[in-house]
C-alpha cells in the first residue's frame, strides 16, 4: 500500500494536443509524496498545460497520468480531483461577494439534517481553520476585502480543508511583498513537514532555491532536466531553461560610467501625497537610469503615477529638463516628455483584442494624421519600425496583442511609451511575469533608451530590475531612506527595502 501511494503525481509519456498542435511531447514526471518540486521553464514551455492536465482542466491526448498512486478520475468528477490535487492560481479564485467562511467551504458547506447549509457550523469550522492558520480575519468578511496574502492563504487552506494533500502553487508570490513571501514560505515549510506535497511554479529562481528540494525544467513541451536542486546551480538551471548560455545583463559590470555632464532630466521636489508620500526629492539626469525601490504600498507606485499625470500630489513639483511639468493630466505630461509603462500590463496596459499595431500607437494617434483621422500608411510605417527595433515576435502588426507571449506584450508596452519620443521614461516593474530571455531583451531596450539620453526611472522591488540601474533610491513608508550606487549586495538592498537599515 505504501509503495502504491508513494507518489503524489506521476505522468508517463503524457502528450497533449490542442487542435493540430502538439504542445506536450511525451512528458514523464514523478513527484514523490512530501516532495517540494519546482517547475520552471520559459513562457510557452508547457508548464501551464502540464498543470492543466494535473488538475483535470482537460484530458491528456496520450500517455498515463496517476494521482496518489491511482489513475486520475474522469474529468467530470470534480470532487475526485479536488480530493487529490488543488491548485492556487495567479488569478483570484475566490468568490468576491461571498464571505471568507463560504469561500473556505465552497461547494462543500457543512449541512444539517435537512440538507440545508448549517451557517453556525460553517462559522465554527471556519474559526477553527483561521485559528490554525493564525489568520486574523472575520469569517463573515467578504472575500474581496482580503489582501492578496490573506486571499492566498484562504485558497491554500481551502485546498487542505477539501482533503487535498498535493498542492500546486502557480506563481504565488507575483503580487506579494517580501515579508509576505517569507511568511508564505514559513507556512509552506510547515506543511511540508506534515507530508503535504507541493509543485511550485515561479519565475523567481531564488525563491525556488529557498523552498524547493527538486526541480523539473521544461522547454518546448518536453522535460529537459529533473534533478535535486543541489545538483543544479542557478547558471545551469538557467541554461537548461533557455537551451543556451546567457549572461543576465543585469548582473554584469557597469557598461557605462555615470554621465559626466549631469544635465537635469527628471526632477521631483517636495512631493507629498496623503499618507503615501512625504516630501520626496529625486533627481534623474539625462542618460541616467535610477531605480526606485520599495515595498507595495511604500509610495513608489504613487510617485510613478504622479510623474505619469495619473495622480495629483498635495504638494511639490515635477520638472522635466528644467521645465515645470503640468501635474495631474496624462496627456499634458506625455506632451511634456514623459513615457510611462504601468505596472501589470493586463490590468493597466493591454487592449487585448486590438492589434499589436494599435497597441503600439495608442498614445500617438494625433500625430498620425489630420483632424483626428489616422493615416493607415503612416501608422503601419511606425509600427513596422517599432517591431523591428524592439525585436517583437509577431506575425505582423495586425496580430491581436492578446495572442503574443508575455514577453512580447511587455516589449510592446515599452514600445508604446517610447512611441511619443519621451525625454523621461518611467517603468513600473517592467519585466514582471516574463521569461528570462525576454527580460534580457527588455533590459537591452531600456539600456538603448538611456544611451539615447533619456532619464529612466525604474520603479520596482525586483532585484534583477534594480541591478540594471546606475543607482537606486529606496523608499519606505513614503520617505526616501537610502541611496545605493552600483555594486550593492542583495542583502543590503532587501534590508533597506524592508525598512531594516
Amino acid at each position, binding site marked *: 500500500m505504501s509503495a502504491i501511494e508513494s507518489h503524489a503525481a506521476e505522468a508517463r509519456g503524457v502528450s497533449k494536443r490542442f487542435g493540430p498542435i502538439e504542445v506536450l511531447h511525451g512528458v514523464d514526471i514523478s513527484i514523490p509524496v512530501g516532495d517540494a518540486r519546482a517547475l520552471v521553464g520559459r513562457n510557452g514551455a508547457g508548464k501551464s498545460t502540464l498543470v492543466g492536465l494535473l488538475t483535470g482542466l482537460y484530458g491528456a491526448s496520450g500517455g498515463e497520468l496517476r494521482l496518489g498512486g491511482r489513475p486520475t478520475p474522469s474529468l467530470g468528477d470534480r470532487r475526485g480531483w479536488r480530493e487529490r490535487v488543488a*491548485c492556487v492560481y495567479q*488569478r483570484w*479564485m475566490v*468568490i468576491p*461577494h*461571498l464571505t471568507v467562511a463560504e469561500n473556505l467551504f465552497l*461547494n462543500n458547506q457543512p449541512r444539517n439534517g435537512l440538507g440545508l447549509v448549517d451557517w453556525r457550523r460553517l*462559522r*465554527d469550522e471556519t*474559526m477553527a481553520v483561521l485559528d490554525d492558520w493564525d489568520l486574523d480575519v472575520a469569517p463573515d468578511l467578504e472575500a474581496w476585502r482580503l489582501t492578496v496574502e490573506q486571499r492566498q492563504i484562504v485558497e491554500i487552506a481551502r485546498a487542505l480543508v477539501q482533503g487535498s494533500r498535493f498542492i500546486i502553487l502557480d506563481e504565488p508570490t507575483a503580487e506579494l511583498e517580501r515579508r509576505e513571501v517569507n511568511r508564505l514560505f514559513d507556512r509552506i515549510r510547515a506543511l511540508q513537514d506534515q507530508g503535504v506535497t507541493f509543485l511550485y511554479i515561479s519565475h523567481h529562481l531564488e525563491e525556488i532555491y529557498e523552498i524547493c528540494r527538486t526541480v523539473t525544467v521544461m522547454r518546448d513541451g518536453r522535460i529537459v532536466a529533473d534533478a535535486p536542486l543541489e545538483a543544479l546551480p542557478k547558471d545551469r538551471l538557467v541554461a537548461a531553461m533557455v537551451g543556451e548560455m546567457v549572461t543576465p545583463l543585469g548582473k554584469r559590470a557597469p557598461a557605462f560610467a555615470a554621465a559626466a555632464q549631469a544635465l537635469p532630466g527628471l526632477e521631483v521636489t517636495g512631493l507629498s501625497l496623503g499618507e503615501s508620500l512625504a516630501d520626496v526629492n529625486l533627481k534623474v539626469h539625462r542618460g541616467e537610469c535610477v531605480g526606485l525601490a520599495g515595498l507595495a504600498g511604500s509610495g513608489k507606485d504613487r510617485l510613478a503615477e504622479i510623474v505619469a499625470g495619473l495622480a495629483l500630489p498635495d504638494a511639490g513639483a515635477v520638472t522635466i529638463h528644467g521645465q515645470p511639468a503640468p501635474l495631474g493630466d496624462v496627456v499634458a505630461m506625455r506632451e511634456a516628455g514623459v513615457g510611462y509603462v504601468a505596472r501589470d500590463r493586463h490590468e493597466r496596459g493591454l487592449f487585448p483584442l486590438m492589434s499589436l499595431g494599435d497597441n503600439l500607437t495608442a498614445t500617438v494617434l494625433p500625430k498620425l494624421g489630420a483632424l483626428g483621422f489616422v493615416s493607415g500608411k503612416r501608422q503601419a510605417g511606425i509600427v513596422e519600425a517599432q517591431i523591428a527595433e524592439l525585436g517583437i515576435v509577431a506575425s505582423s502588426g495586425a496580430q491581436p496583442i492578446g495572442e503574443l507571449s508575455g514577453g512580447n506584450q511587455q516589449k510592446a508596452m515599452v514600445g508604446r511609451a517610447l512611441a511619443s519620443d519621451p525625454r523621461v521614461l518611467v517603468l513600473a516593474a517592467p519585466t514582471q511575469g516574463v521569461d528570462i530571455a525576454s527580460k534580457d531583451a527588455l533590459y537591452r531596450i531600456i539600456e538603448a533608451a538611456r544611451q539615447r539620453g533619456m532619464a529612466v526611472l525604474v520603479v520596482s522591488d525586483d532585484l534583477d530590475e534594480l541591478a540594471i540601474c546606475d543607482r537606486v533610491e529606496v523608499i519606505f513608508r513614503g520617505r526616501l531612506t537610502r541611496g545605493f550606487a552600483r555594486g550593492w549586495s542583495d542583502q543590503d538592498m532587501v534590508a533597506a527595502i524592508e525598512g531594516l537599515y
Partner: protein
Amino acid sequence: MTDVSTSRAAIARPTQSLFARLKLRELVLVPVIAVVMVIGSFVSSSFLMPENLLNILQQSSELSILVIAQSLILICGKFDLSLESTVGIAPMFAAWLMIADVSLGGSGIGISGYAGIAVVLATGLLIGLINGLLVVKLRLNAFITTLAMLILLRGVTLGITNGQTLFDLPEPFLYLGNAKWAGIPASIWIAGLLFLFFGLMMRYHRIGRAIYAIGGNPEAARVAGIPVERITLGVFVVGSLLAALAGLLLTGRIASVVSSQGQNMIFYVFAASVIGGISLNGGQGRLIGALTGVLLLGLLQNVLTLSQVAAFWIDACYGAIILLALIITRLSGETPRA
C-alpha cells in the same frame, strides 16, 4: 485576555439577531418606503385604507414574481430580457388553444382550463430551456440573445391572434388570478410564498449558494466542482417558469389576454431589482432587498396616481424617482473593486 482573542470573541458572537445579519444594504429602502407611505397618507385619505394597500400588493404581485426570476438570473451573472414577452406569450398560446371558436381568435381546439395551465407552464419551461441552451451551450451573450427572444416572442404573440384580445377563458384558468384566500387575493399569497421559498433557498440551499458563486467568479466555481452550466441552465428555466406563472396570474386578474400583455414590464423589473440591491454584475444582492424594491415601486405608482399628477407626467416622475432611489442606494453602500 489578549487583543486577538478579544477581537475574535467579538467576531465570533454566534447569536446575532436577524436584523443585524441583514446588512444595511438590504434595508436601505425601508426608510424610503416609510417616507413614501407618510406622503401617501397626506396625499389621499384613502391611501392607508386596507383595500388600497391590498390593491397595491395585488398589482405588484406579478411584477414581484418577475423580480424573483430576474434576481435569480442576475445573481447568476446573466440577464433575461425576454421574461416580459414570456408573460404575454405563455397565457396567449394557452388561451388560443382553449378557445374553441375560431371567429373569436381561437384555434378551434378547445382544450380545458387545466390543460391550459399546463400549457402556460410548459411554454415557460421551453422558452427558458432555449434561452439557457443558447447562452450556456452556444455561449451567446445573454443580453443580446434574450433581447432577440424578447422581440421574437412578442411578434409570435401578435401573430397567433392577429393582434386580437382573447376573452371568455375557462374559469379554472382564471382562478389563481382572481381568487381570494382568507380574504386576500391568491396572487399575493403566491408571490409572498415564492419570495419566502426562493429567499430561503438562496440563503440555505447549496444550489442557492452555488448561484452566488457562479455569478461572483464562474471560473472559481467550476474549479470548486460546482456544475456551472447545469445550474445556469436551470436558473434560466426557473426564471421563465416564474414569468409564465406571472402571466397566468395577470390573465386571471384581468380575465383576458391582450397581445401587449407584459410589455415594458422588464424596465420595472430591472429597476426594482437594482434599487433593491441586486447587482447587474452578478453574485451580489438578496431577495429581501429585491422585495423592498418592488414594494417601493408599487407604492410610488399608487401615490402618484392618487396625487392627481397629470397622467402624462406620471412616467416622468416615476423615472426621476427611480434614479433618485439608485443614487441613494449607491451612496449608502460600499463598492468593491470596480
